């Protein structure tokens, strides 16, 4: 069974009447993951002084795209990933394009393997995500080194990768709940 049909009891022959309000509700629920990335990117660019704010921006975007790309691709189309990536790029000051490219690549991987990933357990999915999160951070580090024409310390990149991998379980718990409730277009 594909994970996006997670509420089979609602796919009955008797569908609710399609009104404008319902269409709006469905669109809002489907856009919830993208809005989550956009709002967290803007919120985390404010000067709260929280350690690792910039890394958290990247981590939240990566986890969100990965989860929704394999579990409900209808809520996270490629164009939405691109637009979310652009917003994250605008509200961060890292090397331009790296977050966007990382998001698109991780989207491509998750979307391509979505059937396999849905069958895998949580730990296996987390491990695969960890590899790609580490690769994305390494790519970002390599580009910064290329831009600075110097070998910079990889510690910030490692911290970013560790933070991204570390927040994945808690975000997954939130998303699993959201997929059933507030981000489920079938419940509109």
């Amino acid at each position, binding site marked *: 069974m594909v994970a996006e049909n997670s509420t089979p009891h609602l796919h009955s022959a008797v569908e609710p009447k399609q009104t404008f309000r319902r269409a709006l509700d469905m669109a809002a629920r489907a856009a919830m993951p993208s809005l989550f990335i956009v709002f967290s990117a803007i919120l985390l*660019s404010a000067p709260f002084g929280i350690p690792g704010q910039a890394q958290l921006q990247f981590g939240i975007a990566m986890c969100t795209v990965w989860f929704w790309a394999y579990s409900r691709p209808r809520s996270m189309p490629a164009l939405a990933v691109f637009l979310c990536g652009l917003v994250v790029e605008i509200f961060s000051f890292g090397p331009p394009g790296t977050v966007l490219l990382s998001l698109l*690549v991780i989207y491509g991987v998750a979307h391509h393997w979505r059937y396999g990933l849905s069958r895998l357990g949580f730990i296996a999915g987390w491990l695969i995500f960890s590899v790609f999160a580490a690769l994305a951070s390494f790519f970002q*580090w390599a580009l910064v080194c290329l831009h600075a024409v110097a070998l*910079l310390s990889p510690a910030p990149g490692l911290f970013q990768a560790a933070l991204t991998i570390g927040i994945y379980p808690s975000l997954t718990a939130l998303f699993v709940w959201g997929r059933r409730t507030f981000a489920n277009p079938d419940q509109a």
Partner: protein
Amino acid sequence: MLSIHARQVLAKAVLPILILLAVGLVLLGLVRRPSVDGVRLMATDFMAPAYHGLVWPQERVKVWLTDLRGATDLAKENARLRDENRALRHWYDVAVALAAENGRLKKSLHWIPETVPQYVTGRVTRDDGGPYSRAVLLDVGSGHDVRIGDVALDAAGLLGRVTEVGPHTVRVLMINDDASRIPVTLGSSHGDAIMAGDDTASPRLIFYPQDHHPVEGERVETRGQSTMPAGLPVGTVHYSAPNRPVVVPDADLDRLDIVRVFDYGDDDSQAPDAPGRVRVKKLPQNPLTGPLPFSWLPNLPDMPGRGGQ
């Protein structure tokens, strides 16, 4: 209306096209970084009021906590402040005496007074570092006259230099950023060095004279160069490891709030044209091949290095 086949092809082509666009953005960032940063600065300009609204509750909570902490320890705090006030009064007297002496000495030396730099004060809108850089954005309001290269200071010392200027916001590259190189002078040894940021809290000292190593604890000040005036306090020297002197900055780089941006101008230190400089006449091709014109001189010994043997 597109056919099903065409729609399938289009759906498969979307991701590669978007990835190509992202690669284009990466290349643009490598070639034309300022244009990308300009867009980011515009977005921050636009969001500046929202940022103030977002951090307002946090600031209020901080103020309440400070008040609460003060209220619980009033007697001890009073005693500490009284001691501090006594010490400050002593230093005030010393400073007034030194200022008067300085004024007298300058008068007797016919000292040309230095121009007072223009400055604007701004609040830090957001920490703009990211994992690999250390920078802050300042909200300096509209109608400012800040230029790229101006010097940013907090209450204690040097903070960095302005790298981008927007209509309301300016970006300050901090002294501990990896791209920052500031020429400095060491207080007691009077050696020159370069303070190079390395993304840690304490920038390194490099290119110092090998016969005058920086001394632990000595003051570090800026060395005058283009827009950077001499004598701005930077910090103190500390050896984090043998042969690895770093600067512990006076400025509190982690908790920035109010920052002043000074414009010291950049055309004051231009060297004047050297008057009376004359063009050197070209010597003849082989001036010493012929016999010397001074036949009345005695024979001179061969000069060393002339190959007389």
